[in-house]
């Protein structure tokens, strides 16, 4: 069936099989390979993207469910060559090693900062529980997220994600309906 989605600000329209997972659509149809796959049971969160402004594990969403939605991936964060504050904070705090969990981890971090602009350590750890990392032992990631919070205007949410300009977080288009 044909779906139309906006990914990182660009609109795409494609024929997809109903069973195609969103992560495979992003990677194989659109070539957006920044979003990766780390498991087959929805545990690891490496495939985390934003669907209408909220983080989802794209291995657990069908591409057809994203029809009409706006998706942001790791590749859509940097603007005009400038890293998103969370990307910058991950670099500054050595919050990545092999880099495989990093795209999902950053997307989830942005989501949690949208919910809680100034999280304490415990809140960051709770907010990242759905994202596994095998390299960093998490501590520098926690540090990076709190550092990023200090570099983002409190309560404003991440600018890069306001693709429609409203900055308003809509409820997820899927799962609740």
């Amino acid at each position, binding site marked *: 069936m044909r779906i139309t989605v906006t990914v990182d600000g660009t609109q795409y329209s494609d024929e997809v099989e109903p069973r195609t997972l969103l992560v495979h659509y992003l990677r*194989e149809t659109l070539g957006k390979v920044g979003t990766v796959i780390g498991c087959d049971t929805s545990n*690891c969160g490496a495939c985390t993207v934003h669907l209408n402004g909220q983080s989802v594990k794209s291995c657990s969403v069908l591409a057809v469910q994203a029809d009409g939605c706006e998706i942001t991936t790791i590749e859509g964060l940097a603007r005009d060559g400038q890293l998103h504050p969370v990307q910058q904070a*991950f670099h500054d705090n050595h919050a990545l090693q092999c880099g*495989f969990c990093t795209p999902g981890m950053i997307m989830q971090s942005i989501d949690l900062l949208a919910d809680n602009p100034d999280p304490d350590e415990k809140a960051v750890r709770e907010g990242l529980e759905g994202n596994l990392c095998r390299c*960093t032992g998490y*501590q520098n990631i926690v540090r990076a997220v709190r550092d990023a919070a200090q570099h983002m205007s409190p309560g404003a949410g991440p600018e890069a994600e306001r693709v429609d300009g409203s900055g308003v977080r809509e409820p997820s288009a899927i799962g609740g309906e």
Partner: protein
Amino acid sequence: MTTTEETPMGFGRMHRKEDARFLRGRGNYVDDVTLPGMVHGAVLRSPYAHAKIVSIDTSAAEAHPKVLAVITGETLAGLNLAWMPTLSGDVQAVLATDKVRFQGQEVAFVVAEDRYSARDALELIDVDYEALAPVVDARKALDPGAPVVRDDLEGRTDNHIFDWETGDKARTDEVFAAAEVIASQDMLYPRVHPAPMETCGSVADMDPVTGKLTIWTTTQAPHAHRTLYALVAGLPEHKIRVVSPDIGGGFGNKVGIYPGYVCSIVGSILTGKPVKWVEDRSENLMSTSFARDYHMHGEIAATKDGRILAIKVKVLADHGAFNGTAQPTKYPAGFFGVFTGSYDIEAAHAEVTGVYTNKAPGGVAYACSFRITEAVYLVERLIDVLALDLGMDPAELRMRNLLQPDQFPYQSKTGWEYDSGDYPRTLRLALEMAGYDELRAEQARRRESGGQDLMGIGLAFFTEAVGAGPRKHMDILGLGMADSAELRVHPTGKAVLRLSVQSQGQGHETTFAQIVAEELGISPDDIDVVHGDTDQTPFGLGTYGSRSTPVSGAATAVVARKVRERAKIVASAMLEVSTDDLEWEKGRWFVKGDPEAGKSIQDIAMAAHSNLELPDGVEGHLDATCVYNPPNLTYPFGAYICVVDVDAGTGQVKVRRFIAVDDCGVRINPMIVEGQVHGGLADGVGMALMQGMAFDEDGNHLGGSFMDYLLPTSMECPSWELGETVTPSPHHPIGAKGVGESATVGSPAAVVNAVLDALKPFGVRHADMPLTPAAVWCALQGRPIRTDLAIT
């Protein structure tokens, strides 16, 4: 670029060069590789642990409109590829022909136009199995009448793989016979899995015109893979290019060659198209290299006042169905021989017996430094058991027996020459950081007040042995364990460094540039580090066993020094003085006594490529190569202290604090070292408390997905508290030791010792990992459970 003030050019907390692409989703991992005409492979796996294959019907799969090929063991047998050699000199089935020998074993390979169709076609293959009794419990593998796992091997009538021993048995027995105190303990280091976030995969492209095979693959040892493919497939080595692109974590999982890689190559040969194979997580956990699985019986002899005299060990090693363990040829139990640890003892002896069982192959993986995880766990648990028996504080017992700084280089009783160490200083620092005395006081108060809320303090002091190794003693399948570096300075003073090792996240692109920067005074940002492509890099054995810094790091320093010496000759020609009159300061040669008269390395690079007249025999340009054959391993060490809270009602363990003091000699990039330690400590917490792969009586693999094989999340990990001491390796060109695996090696014992310390008032002497709530609760009830079997 960020550097420390003291060392503005080379060593220091430089932020990583490789981050730029990873942060933007612009890494290039194997599954990101797409080639024109590329098709997809998928593996059909055995549902049985042990079964005879009666027949395989692939006709329905072949009839699938999107299927290009279905490959079985029979197909491969026709190519003489049904079996492949392992890193231990055994053979492993690529696709099963006669029998399946573990659940998840590869039975058939489908090549189809897309990933989904390939999976569809797997469902269309009909395999008729005749189930056989499996060998599940390693402790029964040698029983008379046990099913024979490897009846494919000529004349094989039992499951015995090898016996290996080290140390002086007679002397050890003598010391034990005269000892005042002997403490002993059985312990299992259970089977776990490295579980890198990225699974294993490959894209094989056999070009039918040039006859050249290119394989993009998740390998920690691309050059060794190339040679093995040449030997196994009979392809000429210059017609094989192995590319290990960005790797999403390795942890030892990506050292060996897996059947999926071979199948993707055969698939490409048969279809004439590039074939991609990427395994699922469940496939990764069930079929690729596991770690540990050592059943150990340890005994420690001591005087009544706590002087350790001797250690003896018997190990039963479960190697699964094929002996695919990755280790140097002469070391079937890896470097388990360093089990005497950090202590000055009189005698030691160990015996290790390897057995086949109906499980996946592996053993050496997951930051084990060739079985040192097991060795350290053994000795550090034995020390705590001895402390318990003697009624001594475990910190005091360790302090009393540690090797002293003036004993280095120290010849261990099992033949290892520890390079350097100042153990008491490191332990004292850890105890101070922890506030050890106050912690014990708090624990005493808590114990007096009773209640369900228990507190435990655990220590581990470890000595690692990394940087394999001297090629006289160490080789893998005949390939000596040296590594290389090639350095070329371009005319404008920028440089390219080509390495034989392969990063999987450890930051080589940054730290190896820092080594060159320190030696030559070229900014690390001006040095491109190339690795992972066998057509572009010098031969070497790859990255595992924390060997990159010890071996390739040394090669890099040496090659930079060679370039510096060539630059000296060029500078002497430029300045028209003798080389004897020149002096080096970072980044330039200048005339002794006349600092103004000098030439920067950049000026020299341009001159080396110019028409400047050079002395006879000097070829010009600015480059060098080095193959580094290490004289010894490096022996980093550390003192770890873990504090846990245990709920006696539920068995739940919470790691409250973890103090880790590591000494890896000179730190090239302290920020990266700390990141390595953080990651390894999380491994330790995971192994000690959560990660387990058990089997049921039919050999079903329990823990074959992330639903059951639990990895620590941000919630199970505390904020790590790190300290450091610096005791350089005297034999290493820059005094650096490896460190990547230290935390994984050292931390599990600290966590387990902490939990068992909490349980001490309940008379619990030992319990095996993983110390899940169920295991802890059972231990508190006096009902120890076996963590390797679902049936108890």
